[in-house]
C-alpha cells in the first residue's frame, strides 16, 4: 500500500498550515499524553522520591538529599545485596530449567500424535491459573506436617522436608513452583518457532547422516534462535519481577530470615511496611536499571542472531 501524501491547498494559511504539517503528531497526541501520564509521570516521580528522604507519608515535607539513598542502599550488605543475589539466583535458576524443559516438551509436541490436543491443554493449565491461588495451593501441598509433599516422600521412606518453612529450602521450593507454572509459556513460544521451520534443512542433515542430537544442535537450534531469545527475554523480565507467589507464600519481608526476599519484595516492604518511600524508590530505580540492562543485553544478542 502506498503512503498517503498530502495535497496542499493553497488557501490554507497560518495555524491550518502548521496543523497540516504536524498532522502526524496531532493524531498521536492523545495517546502520547495518555502514555506520558500513565508511565512517564510515575517513573519521574519515583526518580524524584529516590533523591529525597521521604518517609511516613509522601505528603510530609521531605528534604532533597541527592544520592544519599543510593549510597545507603548500595552499601547495604544486610538486605539489599542479599536481595539482589536472590533475585538473580531465582531468575537464572528458573530460566535455565524452564528453557531446557520447555525446549524438550516443545520438541515432543512438534510432530503430530494421537491425543495431541489434550496433552497441549493439560500442559497449558498452570499458565491460566491465578498466581495467588497457585501460591496458596502449593503452600498447602508443602505444609510440613500434613502437606501432600511430605506424605509422598513418606511413602518412599524419605524423611519429611521443611519445604517452604526452611530458611534454606524455601527459595528452591518456590523456584520449583515457578517452573511448574511458567514452563508452558516457553513451550508455547518455542513451539511457534518450531512450527514455522521448514523441513528441508532437517531432511538434508538427515540425508547427510546427522543423528538426532546433531540435527537439533546444528540445524534446528540455530534456525530457531530468534524464538529462543524472545522466550528468554520475556521470561527473564517476568522472573526478575516475580512477586505474587513469593508474597502469597511467605508474606512481607520474604520470611523470618528474609529467605525469599527478592528486590521486588524488599521494595514492597520498604514502602508498605516501613513507609520509607525514599529508600523504596531508590531500590526500584536500581531494579529498573537492572532490568533495562538485562533487556539491552538480550536485545543485542537477538539482533546479532538475526543477522
Amino acid at each position: 500500500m502506498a503512503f498517503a501524501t498530502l495535497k496542499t491547498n493553497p488557501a490554507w494559511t497560518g495555524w491550518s498550515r502548521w496543523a497540516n504539517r504536524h498532522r502526524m503528531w496531532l493524531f498521536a497526541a492523545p495517546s502520547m499524553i495518555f502514555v506520558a501520564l500513565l508511565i512517564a509521570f510515575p517513573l519521574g516521580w519515583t526518580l524524584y522520591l529516590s533523591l529525597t528522604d521521604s518517609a511516613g507519608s509522601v505528603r510530609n515535607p521531605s528534604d532533597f538529599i541527592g544520592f544519599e539513598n543510593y549510597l545507603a542502599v548500595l552499601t547495604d550488605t544486610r538486605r539489599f545485596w542479599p536481595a539482589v543475589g536472590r533475585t538473580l539466583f531465582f531468575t537464572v535458576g528458573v530460566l535455565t530449567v524452564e528453557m531446557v524443559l520447555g525446549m524438550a516438551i516443545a520438541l515432543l509436541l512438534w510432530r503430530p500424535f494421537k491425543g495431541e490436543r489434550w496433552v497441549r491443554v493439560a500442559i497449558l493449565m498452570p499458565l491460566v491459573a491465578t498466581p495467588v491461588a497457585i501460591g496458596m495451593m502449593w503452600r498447602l501441598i508443602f505444609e510440613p506436617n500434613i502437606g501432600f509433599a511430605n506424605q509422598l516422600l513418606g511413602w518412599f521412606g524419605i524423611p519429611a522436608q521443611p519445604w517452604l518453612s526452611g530458611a534454606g529450602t524455601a527459595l528452591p521450593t518456590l523456584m520449583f513452583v515457578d517452573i511448574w507454572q511458567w514452563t508452558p509459556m516457553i513451550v508455547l513460544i518455542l513451539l511457534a518457532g518450531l512450527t514455522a521451520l521448514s523441513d528441508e534443512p532437517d531432511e538434508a542433515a538427515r540425508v547427510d547422516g546427522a543423528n538426532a542430537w546433531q540435527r537439533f544442535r546444528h540445524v534446528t537450534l540455530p534456525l530457531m534462535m530468534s524464538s529462543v531469545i524472545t522466550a528468554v527475554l520475556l521470561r527473564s523480565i517476568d522472573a526478575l519481577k516475580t512477586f505474587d507467589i513469593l508474597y502469597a507464600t511467605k508474606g512481607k519481608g520474604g520470611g523470618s530470615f528474609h529467605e525469599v526476599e527478592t528486590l521486588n519484595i524488599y521494595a514492597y516492604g520498604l514502602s508498605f511496611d516501613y513507609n520509607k518511600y525514599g529508600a523504596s524508590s531508590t531500590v526500584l530505580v536500581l531494579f529498573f536499571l537492572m532490568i533495562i540492562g538485562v533487556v539491552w543485553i538480550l536485545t543485542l544478542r537477538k539482533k546479532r542472531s538475526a543477522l
Partner: protein
Amino acid sequence: METYTVKLTSVLRVAALSAAALVAAGSLTSCTSTSAAKDPDVLRVTLANHVWTDIVKDAIPEFEKEHGITIELTQLGEDQLSDQYNVKLNAGSDEIDVMMYRPLQEGKLFATNGYLADLSDKVTENAEWDWADFQEGPVAATSFDGKVVGVPIITEREVLYYRKDLLQAAGLEVPTTLDELETAAREISDQNPGVAGFVARTAKAAAVTQFSSFLYSFGGDFQDAKGEATVDTKEARAAYEYYGGLINNYGPENVSTDMSWPEAMAIFTQGGAAFYTEADSLYLNATDPAKSKVSDTVGFAAFPAGPDGSKPYNVPSWALGVNAESPNQGLAWDFIEWATEKERTLEVQQAGVPGPRTSVWEDAAGIESYPADLATAILANAENGIGHDRPLVINVGEAREIVGDPIVVGITGGDIDASADQAQELFSLFLEDEK
C-alpha cells in the same frame, strides 16, 4: 503512488474528539470519586475482617434508617486494610470517612502524618455515651500529643490456652509460673509422641506481640523510660532464651518460622499441642466445635508468672478513627458513637469480643458467656497488664522485625546472644533515626 487528500477539518475533528474523550473520561473518573465522597448522605466506612465487624455490620441498617443515609462498607483483611490506608491516605483521599485501625501498630504513624481527625471535643460532648467509662490503657493508646484521635473497640491480653485432658493424664496442675509451664510442656511432650508440649507464634514480626508478655514477666522491655533500646539486657536475653527454647525443645516437629496466629492456633485446635499462649480475643477459635477438635477439653489460665511476676500485655487491638480529610466528619463521629455505645459494646462482648469499657467488665452479663476460667484469667491479666505489646515507635513494622530476630534465632536453636547483640545495635540506630 496514490495521492490522498487529508482534510484539515478531519484531522482537527479527530484530535478534538480524542482530547474531549480523554477530558471526559478524566472528569467522569474524578466525578465518581469526589461527588460520592462529598455526598453528605453517604458515609464510607472501612473495617477489618473481625467478629466485631460482623456484629456491627448486622446492625448498620438501623443506623442508616435512623440517620436517613447510606453506608458504603469496605471490609478487608488486616494486611490489605493496611495497604489500602497507605495508598489512599498517602494521596490525601477523602474517600474514607470512618476507619478501623490498630492503635499500637499504625496509630502513631497515622497521627504523626495527620491522617486522624482530632476527636477530643467530640468524646466529651455526650455524657450518656460516657468517655470516662473507657479503660485508661486503651484510651492512652488512642491519644496522641494530648489529643484523642480514636475510640478503642476491642481489647486483648495474652492468656494460656491448655488441654485439660493432657494435663490430667500427666497428673499435672495448671502451670502458674513459667518454670512450671516448661516442666509441664516437657513432661507432656515426652509422654505423648506427636503432641507438642508448647506452641506459639514463630514468624519474626508476628511473634513479637506474644513474646512481649514473656519479656515483661522476665523483667525486661523493648525500651527503657528514656526510650533507649533494651533488648540486650540480662532479662531480655533470658526471655528470648525461654520463648525460643520452649518452641525449639517442646514445639511441633518441623516447626515453621512463618507461623502467625492462624497457623499456631490450627496446631493447637487440631490437638497438636498441650499449651499455647495467645490473645484472649481469639478464644472462640478454640472453643467453637466447628473450628476446634479440642473444644471440650480446652482450658484457660492467666499468663504464668516469670521472675518478675505475671505481666501480660493488655492492649486495645483495634480502634475507630475519622479520616482528617473526610468531608463528613460529623456523621462519621455519629457512627463511631453509635458503634461504641455501652449496649453495643456489651452485645459485642457477649459474642466473645472483649471490649474496652469498664462497665461491661463490671456487669455480670458482660462475662457470663465466657468460659469461667477464661473470665477469671482475663480479669487477672487486666489487673497485671502492661499497656503495649510491641515497641512504642512510629515505624512499628521495621521495629518488630529488628526485635523479633532473636525470637526466630532461638526457635531454630541459633546463637541468641549474638542475635540479641545485633538486635540491640540495630534497634538503637533505628530509635536514633526516629528522633
